């Protein structure tokens, strides 16, 4: 049987079960608040959020592959596009754009103007060091690791700190070779 054609982010998002973004936003806010109370140090909270995101990314990639029918990306450029246009859309209902490529094609930025995590959020002065959306960078890192790419993901711009967009820099550190015989479906 011929493999099904890859689906667009919009098509997948339209077909999956959805919930009110506010429930999601407020629940995330409750998590961040709990972490701030428990861990006290903003750096520790950043770390914990990243870890939570990583855990999610590791599991989320299965659902992503199952529902999107994407085939292997030829290079990191295509990977970044797929994350921004299909991955973000399918889970968060928003898309990102990919820019700021370096000459080797291993570092780029995902730009988000709309981010459901930060509705209603204002950072108090005591939390200026907090990367509020750090869970998202963890998700990207975790998901990419499951498809054999070691990456480093950092926030460059943050609307909660007065920037005009969210900019997430994704840097490909290395491709981990597949370890066992890989059977292509085609």
């Amino acid at each position, binding site marked *: 049987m011929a493999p099904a054609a890859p689906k667009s982010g919009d098509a997948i998002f339209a077909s999956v*079960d959805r919930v*009110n973004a*506010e429930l999601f936003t*407020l*629940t995330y*806010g409750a998590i961040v608040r709990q972490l701030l109370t428990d861990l006290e140090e903003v750096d520790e909270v950043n770390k914990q959020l990243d870890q939570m995101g990583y*855990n999610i990314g590791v599991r989320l990639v299965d659902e992503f592959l199952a529902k999107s029918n994407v085939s292997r990306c030829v290079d990191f450029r295509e990977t970044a596009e797929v994350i921004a246009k299909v991955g973000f859309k399918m*889970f968060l209902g928003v898309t990102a754009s990919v820019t700021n490529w370096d000459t080797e094609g291993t570092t780029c930025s995902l730009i988000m103007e709309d981010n459901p995590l930060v509705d209603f959020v204002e950072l108090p002065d005591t939390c200026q060091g907090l990367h509020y959306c750090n869970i998202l960078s963890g998700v990207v890192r975790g998901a990419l690791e499951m498809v054999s790419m070691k990456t480093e993901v950092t926030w460059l711009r943050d609307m909660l700190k007065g920037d005009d967009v969210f900019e997430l820099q994704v840097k490909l550190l290395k491709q981990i070779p597949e370890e066992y015989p890989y059977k292509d479906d085609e």
Partner: protein
Amino acid sequence: MGFRESHFPSGLEVHKRNSPCPTFTIHIEIALWETLSKGKQKVSLSAFAFLFSELVQYNQTQVDNIAELERRLEDAGYAVGARVLELLCHREKGNRRETRLLGILSFIHSTVWKVLFGKVADSLEKGTEHEDEYMNSEKELLVNRFISIPKDMGAFNCGAFVAGIVKGVLDNAGFPAVVTAHFVPVDGQQRPRTTILIKFVEEVLLREARLG
């Protein structure tokens, strides 16, 4: 604050006059106004399920018994409930909130449930044995949909989070209550339903009686 005004333009003017830095504040106000009035945005159910599962797993590392875990989930929910009340009173109720017992219960059963879970709750009943108890039940509570409880965790119910939301709404609306989540087996169904049991404190019922 400007956004509490029922009409945006007047709210805007208030700030123009009072704010030392008008342009910046107005920008924020508009952003806030948009966020407050939209509310039709969606994310995928799995995004929420993943997030919720992390919330539960993280809290598991912070406790050593089930009661404590439920209390922490309730705390997290409480924070959500308090904000949901404020948001919905503004958006759905023209900045008014319910002051009567049945009013606030039906607000939770219909308005809050519809916004958070996309449907009204399956049932709202009054306890038969106690005057101060009400039960809001749901066949398949959203947060329990992807959760199976390990045998060694006994009666643990992730619905504690939703109980926290309900408590957050009630407390902040002036109806303090003890709210707990329970699994109730249903005939002919594999999975139990979840009942959110609301037990109001005495003063609420006294006040209600006085209001007649």
